[in-house]
């Protein structure tokens, strides 16, 4: 299966490189801008503005407060977007493109196919995030800021984004296997991503929504991101990995039953004879 894994990485290398560069730019620009932040912006007290506080911005007066409220606030959304796009493309996209039929005609089982694709995407996500972590840590080092945050903290915090990429690529894979076509899978996966991100933020403003937060990946990731200045939230990382594994499992179940190339709804798919 190593050959199939190599193939999966090869066909997605352009996408991985593009995402790695785009996210690295995002990491760099927010890190670079901090020394140039005007004093009046640094003196804003976001806690006085419920909206800013609700989306996780505590202070701009320190680098760690600024970077947690900006880069590490929005990066989980962008990494989730990366996961959704590559995840939905791996099964749903390839089916629409017609290339999935070529793989399905090879002597590999459906389960192997989903697992190899998952592994390839997980490795690709790790490589993208490794590159972005190195860029973020490198840019941070160049600035020589007076802050308790170290370059290693920056690097490792960016690496923690992998769990969010994994959760959303798994959701994308599942929806690509379950829904009739790529466009629908991508649309629903994006809706799930934005619901998770903005739902978590809204719940910060409206306590009535708090009971929904445990169902939102971004809620769990909030604890993880504070590893920049504190301990690693292994429990929340475990929860997010478990959510991802759960969606991979659902993707395997859905893909095993799927009639490839015909794009039917699950209830239109034939019951297997014999």
């Amino acid at each position, binding site marked *: 299966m190593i050959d*199939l894994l190599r193939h999966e990485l090869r066909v997605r290398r352009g996408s991985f490189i593009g995402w790695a560069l785009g996210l690295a730019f995002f990491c760099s620009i927010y890190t670079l801008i901090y020394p140039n932040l005007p004093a009046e912006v640094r003196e804003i007290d976001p806690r006085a503005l419920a909206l800013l506080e609700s989306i996780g911005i505590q202070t701009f007066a320190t680098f760690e407060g600024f970077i947690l409220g900006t880069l590490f606030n929005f990066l989980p959304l962008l990494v989730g977007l990366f996961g959704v796009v590559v995840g939905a493309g791996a099964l749903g996209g390839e089916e629409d493109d017609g290339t999935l039929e070529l793989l399905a005609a090879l002597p590999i089982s459906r389960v192997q196919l989903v697992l190899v694709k998952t592994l390839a995407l997980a490795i690709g996500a790790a490589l993208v995030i490794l590159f972005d972590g190195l860029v973020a840590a490198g840019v941070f080092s160049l600035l020589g800021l007076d802050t308790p945050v170290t370059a290693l903290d920056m690097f490792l915090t960016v690496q923690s984004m992998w769990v969010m990429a994994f959760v959303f690529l798994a959701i994308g894979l599942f929806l690509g296997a379950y829904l009739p076509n790529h466009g629908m899978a991508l649309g629903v996966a994006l809706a799930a991503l934005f619901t998770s991100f903005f739902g978590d933020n809204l719940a910060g403003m409206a306590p009535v929504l708090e009971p929904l937060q445990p169902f939102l990946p971004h809620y769990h990731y909030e604890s993880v991101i504070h590893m920049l200045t504190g301990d690693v939230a292994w429990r929340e990382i475990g929860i997010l990995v478990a959510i991802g594994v759960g969606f991979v499992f659902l993707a395997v179940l859905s893909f095993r039953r799927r009639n490839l190339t015909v794009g039917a709804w699950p209830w239109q798919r034939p019951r297997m004879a014999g």
Partner: protein
Amino acid sequence: MSQPIIETNDLSVYYGRQRGIHALNMTVEPGEVYGFLGPNGAGKTTTLRVLLDIIRPTAGRAAVFGLDCHRDGVAIRRRVGYIPGELMLYTQLRAEEYLDMVTRVGGGQSDPDYRRRLCALLDLDPRRPMHTYSRGNKQKVGLVAAFMRRPDLLILDEPTSGLDPLIQQNVLDLVREARADGRTVLFSSHVLPEVQAVCDRVGIIRDGQIVATEKVEQLLKSRLQRLHIRFAQMPPAGALDGDGVTELDRVGDSVTFEVRANLNRLLAQAVAYDVLELDNEQVTLEEIFMTYYSRNGGARHD
């Protein structure tokens, strides 16, 4: 009696209420080239996909090499080379990267010399990125991928589509070569001359069912033509009808004839009315089949 390479029993695929194929029965024997014919939407591609477990049957059974197509799909596909009718390739790869992957993942025999020979025969440069390929070159990549492992069974869905005539002949030679090696070919096509050229037996599928299975020699005897003749002087209605010749229609100074036999007699008689123009219309394969089978007492089931 040897075990059939392909055998379907009352095979049905429904998508909700929509029919894909219905109670389809088909048998392909070892070492034969079986032509699988039918109009668009008849169920050819659905059947081929069921054999590869790409689509699952709603009812009935499909077996390849005596193995169940769903349960033993991996074992079956290890011995099958396939080119889909609507071939789409990974345009971000070079052809040789794709072929390497198929060789390694596909298992079976790996013979770099044979692969090189196939590329030469099909005039394919596999070092180029596939996004630079024309439709015909993409088809060649699919053909090399299907043939290069020398599989026991080749499932070819419109294999010569998009190829120039010279390369088409080379593909037909490869099919003949596979048969000479004792391998089996399921050859789905709309193109009657190439079916005649390589197939031992043909089956026609219509509305999701096999309505006829016949040896190619029998098919050739049923050859049907449709002639449009423009006359300077119109013959009386039905004057040129005879054994194997039927007048179908007349518009202005033209008469349309369906000709199954005795073409020379028709032409000889037509000359008496001063022929101005003669046009031989391409008759579809289905028309030939349907005409042939109605002449032989209606459609037979496989």
